[in-house]
């Protein structure tokens, strides 16, 4: 019974936090769209039909009703919120297709490269950390540690175009564009993995550094355990756990990164759909995408919290773990 109570006391606030982040994301987007100058519907129609488009007022009112842009701000705010909770994100102004359907169609393509990028990024971050840890010479260690800051500074369009130019056009190993085959996902995933891996590296390597100074590593070294074994048995385990808390942040990076990467590689997906929506000034689609990304971010954080509760019982029984490298809602 106390077990259930402890879990409830741990999970309910997390669940509340999840709902808050989703609603607040929606509110933030709503405020930005409606309080920045300009009429979104007129801008979208002008983008569709050219700058000189003339629409008569009656028709404009009918279009407002169709795209859910009529009524007072409060009516719109709550109306769209309730609709969104039921899975209805409105209709695209540019294409007339329901936004939920558009996102559903583009989603799998983005998930494919994003999950591959996460895999590449995390694996190489762990590998670089291990090599730097085991490097026999200080200069090699320094060199390895310089790679991740470099990864953050490279613009995604540059790394993408370089990869295309080398692996698609010069060597001809992989396709330069498209989303039909698995091969086509490799280059975009590497491009996307660069900043994500670098970000993960920052958190992971500092966690390794922290674990390196702990008594159990000292003991292991004193016992004569070889470095590779210390890394896999002691450091990797203890450093990987706090690092998973930035998973939500990485998902956010991935979502933002797909806009450039999918454009460079001419791939279908959420990012390219968003770019096209911005070009068409299609505010309904952009709102929908941001809300879905915000919800995924909040969901991943919720899952990480729950997983943490299982893995590390100290988090559940009050107090919590002090050093959490997470950027989520925290007082």
């Amino acid at each position: 019974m106390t077990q259930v109570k402890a879990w409830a006391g741990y999970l309910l606030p997390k669940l509340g936090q999840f709902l808050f982040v989703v609603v607040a994301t929606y509110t933030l987007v709503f405020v930005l769209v409606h309080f920045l100058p300009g009429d979104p519907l007129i801008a979208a129609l002008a983008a569709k039909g050219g700058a000189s488009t003339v629409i008569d007022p009656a028709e404009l009112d009918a279009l407002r009703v169709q795209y859910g842009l009529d009524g007072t701000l409060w009516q719109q705010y709550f109306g769209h919120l309730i609709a969104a909770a039921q899975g209805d994100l409105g209709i695209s102004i540019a294409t007339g297709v329901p936004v939920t359907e558009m996102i559903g169609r583009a989603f799998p393509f983005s998930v494919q490269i994003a999950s591959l990028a996460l895999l590449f990024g995390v694996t190489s971050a762990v590998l670089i950390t291990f090599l730097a840890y085991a490097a026999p010479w200080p200069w090699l260690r320094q060199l390895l540690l310089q790679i991740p800051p470099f990864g953050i500074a490279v613009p995604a369009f540059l790394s993408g175009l370089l990869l295309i130019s080398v692996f698609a056009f010069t060597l001809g190993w992989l396709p330069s564009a498209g989303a039909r085959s698995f091969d086509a996902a490799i280059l975009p995933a590497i491009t996307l993995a660069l900043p994500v891996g670098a970000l993960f590296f920052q958190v992971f390597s500092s966690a390794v550094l922290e674990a390196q100074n702990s008594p159990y590593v000292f003991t292991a070294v004193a016992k004569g355990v070889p470095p590779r074994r210390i890394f896999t048995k002691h450091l990797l385990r203890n450093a990987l756990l706090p690092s998973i808390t930035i998973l939500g942040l990485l998902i956010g990076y991935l979502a933002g990164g797909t806009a450039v990467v999918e454009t460079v590689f001419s791939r279908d997906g959420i990012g390219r759909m968003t770019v096209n929506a911005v070009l068409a000034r299609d505010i309904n689609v952009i709102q929908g995408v941001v809300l879905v990304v915000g919800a995924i971010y909040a969901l991943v954080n919720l899952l990480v919290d729950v997983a943490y509760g299982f893995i590390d019982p100290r988090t559940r029984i009050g107090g919590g773990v002090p050093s959490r490298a997470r950027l989520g809602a925290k007082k």
Partner: protein
Amino acid sequence: MTNLRKPGFVLGLIIIAVAIVASLAPQLLATHDPFESVATDRLLPPSAQYLFGTDNLGRDLYSRVIYGAALSLLSASLAVVVGVVVGAVVGLISGFVGGRTDFIIMRFVDVLIAVPGVLLALIVVASLGFGPLSLALGVGLGAAGSFARVMRSQVIRIRSEEYVEAARTLGVRAPAILVQHVLPNAARPVIAMAALELGTAILSVSALTFLGFGAPPPAPEWGALVSAGRDYVATNPGLSIIPGAVILVVVLAVNRVARAIGGDE
């Protein structure tokens, strides 16, 4: 001053100085008119006459990159200013007022940080229209959340310092305390962060101009140059890779100098 002996730092400063000259007085560095097309000199490789080669309209790529610096770097700097000002004001109020107001403001700041910066910028650009100004506003707003958080933590730290207590006891009003005591003492970490943010802002702005949300075509914005060269990546990869590399070099230089400013060595 130990910084001056480090080659990376000095190189970074030189690159930044060149970039600033290019933004303010491009005619000093450019070798050609960035808008003039020479029909017979299309898609030439780099040479002594055309340092970075020429584009599909026969324009000198080097001069276009030089003239592009102003638009690209000024948008990015403006974005940082927007981020710092908005973030500092929010963080200052939140930290100084405290209590429930602080709690509510910070929850919204959490969300501002949670939404990916690119998406936030896209919302602003879609609402305001394309161009360097709305890019700067969008990118700046995306960065404001982190500035608010840093500013708030500084304010909370300083609020309980003895000199603030003393000023309060002497009857100095809250706005005066904020301006005279809190702001100058909170500035250093915020400035260090702003310097680091500049590199990120250059990347974000160039990504958004690459996507086509910057100034309209003949303008030689860096991201737009990369995008224009994309069609020739199979035959003339330098056309998009050289401007891309320029962005990378400038970002690395800015980050290197920013780390030195932050004392993070």
